[in-house]
């Protein structure tokens, strides 16, 4: 069964508070008992460019960006012009009746909802910021929502700004609500009518999930240089550092970030960095330093589109090969690819344990669509999580050998200041860390380090997840943020399933080979030009997919596009 999804889009100029309003609407819908999924589109400028936030609301599953609009809140002309074609028959268009906006081209099937937004904002307290609150109040009125839920939300969100602000926001919402209910309420169904009382849910995006996951995992040091789309990770971490006794430091560049994180880990801290592809390219030099010195390090890499500055505020999955291969020489690296906000939270926690257990780098590879799309979930439960610091001692140990050879490749790690002498040496080194270029030592140390990956594959690597029916005519194979769109797309088919791969290194070769043996027709879907994963799959398993679905325009997969592909294959008949 396909879920019914109601899509509200808010558009305006950068600086008009589009994102804040979208979050408020998403929280409102969540508190009213619905599932939500948001998507933001904006250019890389602070004021003036076209900003859009899509809020999808459903009683059922909703985990993907939609290619339609059921209700459009247009704060400027551009929003109307750019999104006309997405409006569904019977959709609503809310705009400021006092602004001379041109709606001549709007199809007749669309209900126009002109409201004196600025005038009401002035009445409520004066400032233009309230325009959005008036509009949200109107949406609540039009869609059968409960204004008291909005009032409570305003109190929670703006309470720390003082009673006056709360009062004027409430008034603004009330004015919008009354006017809209009276004039347009009858034209729509009630997609925001409070649903049966569900549990309280969080509305959060992948950035927030990564930051909170790091705190839950006992992170002690983070150095992060701002970069879209991961900056929000550092905003969250910077805020809570005193309370949880960790350090967040903004460094001068990404090179310094990773070197600082290595220094902190050398002193014994659970340590992390976060960046996007460009910043990771700068970190490439230091990536291998962590590898050869066996320093645990969690790296959150939020991919954006294209090389160089590229598509800085759009999404792509084109850094997979980068994180798998960056840096000269060989060293063991773990690369994980969570598929939604919840997985980002738990994968980040897992990454800290893996980094310390295997004393190496763990990349959590996400993308802009994961970083900045909100979903709602019951409160994450981390009570079962045990902080695993692996073979690690903070006690003085006689004849300590930091890099002693071992069966599983893992030696006992210690920290500066403990009294256990060792060198974290970027030169190849012996078991104490002294530089050594001897043949036997090189072979021993190299094999020891690389053996950690074999241990990891044996003890911790997870098998891919099969979604949908066991036996299917079409098997979609994919990774990362595409999960939501694929799950939504295949809901209506009983002959299509989906293999989600969450481990890129080490790679689940055996499990995938076994799973793919049953597949009749395989489509590899990913958001890049170079089919990074498709190639990796072939390299690791010898398996050649029947078909690919690739996209690299910065936009996510829309479920419709995946369904079109499925239809195309079904039409020509499945035979592989």
């Amino acid at each position, binding site marked *: 069964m396909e879920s019914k999804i109601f899509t509200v889009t808010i558009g305006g100029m950068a600086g008009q508070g589009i994102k804040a309003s979208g979050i408020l609407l998403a*929280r409102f819908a*969540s*508190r009213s008992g619905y599932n939500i999924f948001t998507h933001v589109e904006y250019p890389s400028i602070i004021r003036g460019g076209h900003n859009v936030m899509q809020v999808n609301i459903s009683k059922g599953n909703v985990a993907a960006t939609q290619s339609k609009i059921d209700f459009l809140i247009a704060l400027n002309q551009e929003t109307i012009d750019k999104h006309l074609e997405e409006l569904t028959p019977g959709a609503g268009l809310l705009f400021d009746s006092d602004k001379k906006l041109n709606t001549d081209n709007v199809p007749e099937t669309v209900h126009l909802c002109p409201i004196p937004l600025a005038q009401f904002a002035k009445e409520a307290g004066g400032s233009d910021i309230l325009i959005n609150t008036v509009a949200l109040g109107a949406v609540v009125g039009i869609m059968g929502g409960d204004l008291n839920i909005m009032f409570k939300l305003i109190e929670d969100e703006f309470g720390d700004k003082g009673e006056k602000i709360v009062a004027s926001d409430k008034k603004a919402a009330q004015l919008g609500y009354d006017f809209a209910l009276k004039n347009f309420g009858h034209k729509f169904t009630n997609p925001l009518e409070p649903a049966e009382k569900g549990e*309280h*849910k*969080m*509305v959060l995006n992948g950035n*927030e999930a990564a930051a*909170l996951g790091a*705190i*839950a995992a*006992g992170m*002690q*040091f983070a*150095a992060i240089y701002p970069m879209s789309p991961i900056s929000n990770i550092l905003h969250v971490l910077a805020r*809570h*550092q*005193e*309370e*949880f*006794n*960790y*350090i967040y*430091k903004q*460094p*001068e*560049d990404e*090179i*310094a*970030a990773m*070197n*600082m994180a*290595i*220094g*902190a*880990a*050398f*002193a*014994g*801290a659970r*340590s992390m960095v976060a960046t996007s592809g460009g910043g990771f390219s700068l970190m490439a*030099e*230091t990536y291998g330093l962590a590898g050869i*010195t066996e320093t645990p390090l969690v790296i959150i890499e939020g991919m954006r589109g294209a090389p160089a500055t590229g598509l800085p505020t759009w999404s792509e999955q084109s850094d997979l090969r980068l994180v798998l291969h960056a840096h000269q020489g060989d060293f063991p690296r773990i690369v994980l690819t969570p598929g939604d906000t919840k997985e980002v939270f738990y994968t980040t926690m897992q990454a800290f344990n893996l980094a310390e257990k295997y004393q190496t780098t763990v990349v959590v590879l996400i993308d802009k669509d994961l970083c900045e799309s909100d979903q709602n979930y019951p*409160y994450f439960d*981390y009570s079962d999580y045990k*902080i695993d610091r692996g073979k690690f001692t903070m006690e003085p140990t006689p004849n300590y050998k930091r890099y002693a050879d071992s069966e599983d490749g893992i030696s006992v790690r210690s*920290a*500066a*200041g403990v*009294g*256990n*002498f*060792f*060198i*974290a*040496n*970027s030169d190849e080194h012996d078991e104490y860390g*002294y*530089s050594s270029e001897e043949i036997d030592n090189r072979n021993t140390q190299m094999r020891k380090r690389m053996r950690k990956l074999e241990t990891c594959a044996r003890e911790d690597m997870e098998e891919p997840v099969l979604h949908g029916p066991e036996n299917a005519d079409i098997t979609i194979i994919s990774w990362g943020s595409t999960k939501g769109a694929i799950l939504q797309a295949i809901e209506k088919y009983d002959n299509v399933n989906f293999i989600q791969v969450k481990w890129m290194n080490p790679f689940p070769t055996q499990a995938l080979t076994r799973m793919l043996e049953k597949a009749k027709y395989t489509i590899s879907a990913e958001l890049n030009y170079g089919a990074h994963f498709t190639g990796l799959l072939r390299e690791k398993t010898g398996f050649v997919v029947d078909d690919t679905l690739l996209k690299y325009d910065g936009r996510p997969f829309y479920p419709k596009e995946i369904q079109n592909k499925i239809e195309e294959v079904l039409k020509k008949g499945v035979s592989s």
Partner: protein
Amino acid sequence: MTTLADLATPHQPNWCPGCGNYTIWAAFKNAAVEQGWDNTNTAMTADIGCNGHIVNFTKINSVEGLHGRALPVAEGIKMANHKLNVFSFIGDGGCMGEGGNHFIHACRRNHDITVVIHDNELYSLTTGQTSPTTQQGYPTKSTPFGNPDKPFSPAALAIASGATFVARVYSGDIKNLKEILIKANKHKGIAIIDVLQPCVTFHKVCTHTFYQQNTTPLPDDWDRTDKAAAFMKAMEFGENDIPVGIFYEVEKPTNESHFPQLKQTPIVKIPIKRDGLKEILKSYS
């Protein structure tokens, strides 16, 4: 108590006979013995270059990292465990060239670390190319017709960038270097020591004799708190006119002092707690 034997490793220095690195190493070890620096209270980071090999000959926990990147590693160590004495040994090539950005920001943020610049005015491990401190006109392998570029003064750059302790000393003056290392370590904030170090193999002008004849100690009544005068003095570098001593020394808030969580116990020694996270998760509803 630290003895010289405690600091010894099974490895003997492989620097060229007469290299300035020997006396820097000696001065550091003497300071360590005098001050009791050991593996319970001290850590080092090193650059890549001849100087970086110091980690193999000194039994103190260290990171020998990447060319030009010793400073951010040291900063990370200090933030994670602010009770440690942290020293960075860097070269003029690595940290003035490849790592110049780290250098100015380390000074600006006033991390509480001690930075020893092995300043031999050359890239020597790669057999003698021009560095950011090579004098203009001096011929090197990369500038056979003379270095066209003007050098800068690491000490002046440090003062301009906000460092709070800046000194220059000749590497052969072991006693003074030891005293300055101790003072630098006691100083709250970043301490930059520009050590004039002859490269006996590749530098034909900046020899031991050259530095012995051309360095002049700062006057006894030098005002170390006068930033403008310190900057001007640090810019002086010529025949019979290479001032040495502590140019500048002031107390300013350190990087570490800005973190309330670093008031007492080092971050790495505080038991990890996650109480309160539930409340934060609730704020997302």
